[in-house]
């Protein structure tokens, strides 16, 4: 880079040969008689003027001086004193004849005359890289600002800067050093000098803002040599604007490489090595990246394979039916049909449809009787993305399904469903059971109310009768109380039976019909004889299988019932027997009593149907019978030709149903 600039300046100097000056005779004489001119420079103001590593005075001003020397014939001798202020003092004392770069100020004008400014270099504010925004001096109010002693910028700061504390340094280098360390907030000075130092030391600083002040470089001459001033001005006028800009740019922007010395060579090697190292590092990293990518990809493939396997396993073995579909819509985007894309084995199990057959076909092709609500609901999910869960009855399969539907991809819906028919029926059964339980409780409490009331009433009567000493009445009262409590006792007993019938485990044994009939008859004999009812037992050798106590209750129940509703035929008769109906043995109890109207044939087993209030028992009777039969996995039903034509109660028993092995 520096080579290039060097060539440019070189080129310039060759391209534009210096004009010879037009001097007056007096001026020429003056030049000849004043040799050498003692030139004071500020050796610490690069790039304006300084001594390079070889000690040779260099810089912008010196390039200008060189031009002037060439053009005018003036001979210069550089005198440098460390401190700028001392140099200025030298001019005042006239031990130094001129300075090559100085800004004209009123103070200096007392002992110096200035040439016209030959260069303008802006003044700037330099701050730390990380400092906040500074756009002019006002932003530095209250801050510590560095400046070089004696420089015009210091004067400017003093005048223009308000509220800031100026810290003075010997040179820009020191000032910038402190700024870099953070002991200062800003440094003010010459752009050229500051940027030179910043680049050289690579400080983390930046040029924050220009000042309204521009550094005008002039040359200052001792006050008693006005001739020199005019000669210098003439000489300066010969240096073209182009030349000056070139010189300026060379020094301001290409400064670090001014010294063609080992430094630059070492720098070059260092840069090269670093560059090479970078390339190597990049290469290594790139390689690593590639390896990583490869292993990542392999990993991903492995994972994908694993996922596929897991999915497949789930798909094949899950109990729920799974199917993926694509929705088909009409012109208005309303769902009208759907196509099967995938279905799992469970799907086949639940619906009977073979995935191999249905995949690719639409539901209207395979199951045209599918209800519209299925298509609508699924379509909704496929088009809106909202998942759906419902339980619905399917006419096609006559089963209840619990369905979860979701939207895995646009216009598709996936369905996971299970057969909940059993649960549904169970629920219905439970509901029915609950209802009958409520009815039962209502009826029982009702049945108990009546005798309780009786006891209460007669207790009152008893009190007054006792008071009156009416003994017969007292006895009568007690009789009524007694029968009422008896009735309650019976109700409670039957209640217990009903509860037990549900809970106690069946103990099945073989029961001879004739034997148990005999036992049951002795329990009802009193009633039967008083009512004149004839009891006939058929099929005495038949063997029943069931829980003996419960069967006893069952038969007693049916016999009691028959007697209750025997009415008044000429020859009341109750028969017990067994008949074959298909594969089953059906036990029957037949009477020739009042019969049952057709609409009541099922009602008689209902708990809340009580047709005879005054009887001993409660309305639970036949319901109890039903409970016992059902506990034996059997069925009980009533038949009757009609009112007045007797009735028959039939029942079956199958207590070993669950344990039975199916005979081929």
């Amino acid at each position, binding site marked *: 880079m520096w080579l290039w600039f060097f060539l440019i300046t070189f080129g310039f100097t060759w391209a534009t040969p210096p004009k010879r000056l037009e001097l007056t005779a007096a001026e020429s004489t003056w030049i000849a008689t004043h040799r050498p001119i003692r030139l004071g420079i500020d050796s610490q103001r690069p790039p304006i003027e300084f001594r390079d590593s070889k000690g040779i005075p260099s810089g912008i001003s010196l390039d200008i001086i060189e031009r002037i020397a060439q053009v005018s014939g003036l001979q210069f001798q550089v005198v440098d004193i460390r401190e700028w202020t001392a140099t200025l003092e030298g001019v005042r004392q006239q031990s130094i004849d001129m300075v090559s770069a100085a800004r004209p100020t009123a103070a200096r004008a007392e002992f110096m005359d200035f040439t016209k400014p030959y260069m303008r270099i802006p003044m700037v504010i330099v701050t730390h890289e990380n400092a906040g925004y500074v756009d002019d001096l006002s932003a530095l109010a209250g801050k510590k600002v560095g400046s070089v002693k004696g420089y015009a910028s210091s004067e400017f700061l003093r005048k223009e800067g308000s509220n800031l504390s100026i810290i003075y340094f010997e040179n820009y280098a020191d000032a910038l050093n402190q700024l870099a360390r953070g002991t200062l907030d800003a440094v003010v000075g010459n752009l050229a000098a500051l940027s030179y130092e910043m680049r050289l030391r690579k400080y983390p600083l930046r040029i924050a803002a220009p000042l309204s002040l521009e550094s005008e470089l002039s040359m200052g001459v001792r006050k008693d040599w006005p001739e020199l001033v005019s000669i210098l001005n003439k000489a300066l006028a010969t240096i073209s604007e182009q030349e000056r800009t070139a010189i300026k740019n060379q020094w301001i922007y290409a400064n670090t490489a001014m010294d063609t010395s080992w430094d630059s060579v070492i720098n070059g090697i260092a840069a090269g090595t670093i560059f090479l190292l970078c390339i190597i590092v990049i290469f290594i990293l790139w390689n690593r990246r590639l390896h990583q990518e490869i292993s990542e990809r392999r990993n991903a493939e492995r994972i994908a394979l694993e996922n596929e396997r897991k999915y497949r396993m789930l798909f094949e073995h899950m109990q729920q039916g799974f199917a993926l579909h694509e929705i088909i819509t009409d012109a208005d985007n309303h769902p009208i049909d759907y196509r099967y894309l995938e279905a799992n084995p469970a799907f086949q199990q639940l619906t009977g449809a073979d995935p191999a057959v249905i995949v690719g076909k639409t539901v209207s092709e395979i199951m045209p009787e599918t209800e519209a609500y299925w298509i609508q609901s699924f379509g909704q999910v496929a088009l809106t993305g909202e998942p759906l869960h419902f339980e619905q009855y399917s006419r096609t399969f006559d089963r209840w399904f619990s369905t979860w539907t979701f939207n895995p991809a646009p216009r598709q819906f996936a369905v996971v469903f299970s057969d909940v028919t059993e649960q549904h029926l169970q629920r219905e059964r439970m509901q029915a059971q609950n209802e009958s339980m409520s009815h039962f409780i209502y009826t029982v409490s*009702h049945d108990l*109310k*009546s005798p309780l*009331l*009786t006891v*209460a*009433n*007669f207790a009152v*009567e008893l009190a007054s009768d006792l008071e009156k000493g009416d003994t017969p*009445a007292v006895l*009568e009262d007690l009789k*009524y109380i007694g*029968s*009422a409590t008896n009735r309650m006792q019976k109700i409670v007993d039957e209640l217990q039976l009903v509860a037990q019938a549900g809970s106690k485990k069946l103990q099945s044994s073989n029961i001879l019909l004739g034997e148990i009939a005999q036992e049951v008859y002795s329990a009802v004999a009193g009633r039967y004889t008083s009512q004149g009812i004839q009891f006939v037992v058929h099929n005495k050798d038949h063997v029943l299988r069931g829980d003996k106590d419960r069967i006893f209750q069952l038969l007693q129940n049916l016999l009691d019932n028959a007697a209750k509703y025997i009415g008044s035929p000429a020859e009341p008769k109750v028969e017990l027997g067994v008949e074959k109906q298909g594969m089953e043995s059906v036990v029957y109890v037949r009477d020739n009593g009042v019969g049952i109207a057709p609409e009541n044939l099922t009602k008689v087993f209902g708990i809340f149907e009580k*047709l*005879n*209030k*005054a009887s001993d028992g409660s309305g639970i009777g036949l319901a109890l019978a039903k409970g016992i039969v059902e506990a034996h996995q059997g069925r009980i039903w009533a038949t009757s030709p009609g009112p007045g034509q007797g009735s028959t109660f039939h029942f079956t028993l199958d207590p070993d149903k669950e344990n039975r092995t199916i005979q081929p």
Partner: protein
Amino acid sequence: MKNRDAMLIVDDEPSITYLLKKEISRHFKETFEYETAFSASQALQIIDAMVADGIRVILILSDWLMPEMKGDEFLMKVHAKHPGIRAIMISGYADPEAIDAVRARVPLRAFLGKPWDKVQLILEIQKCIAELEVIP
């Protein structure tokens, strides 16, 4: 033979008929005769018998829920045959529609629930008796 007026109490529960008879006879004493029946059909027979004997049945106190013939059917039959007989129904549970039906066809003087208020019972009976003076 002195003809007396009679009241008929019909209920399939003996304890109820006993109590009712006791209460009413204790209050009205010898003024009336008191008969009981345990079913509607029995009651109808008794009414026919008493009327044949020249006894005037002025009031029937009847239950609703009875085996075979219910109270409403019973009272309608009575009213059809003997329109002059007044009726009070006493029941533990009577179908509201049935009550309305009875009231529509039979002049029910009162409907009392079980358990009945003794005072109210006597009051209603007295009202019936009072009517007698005006409308024989």
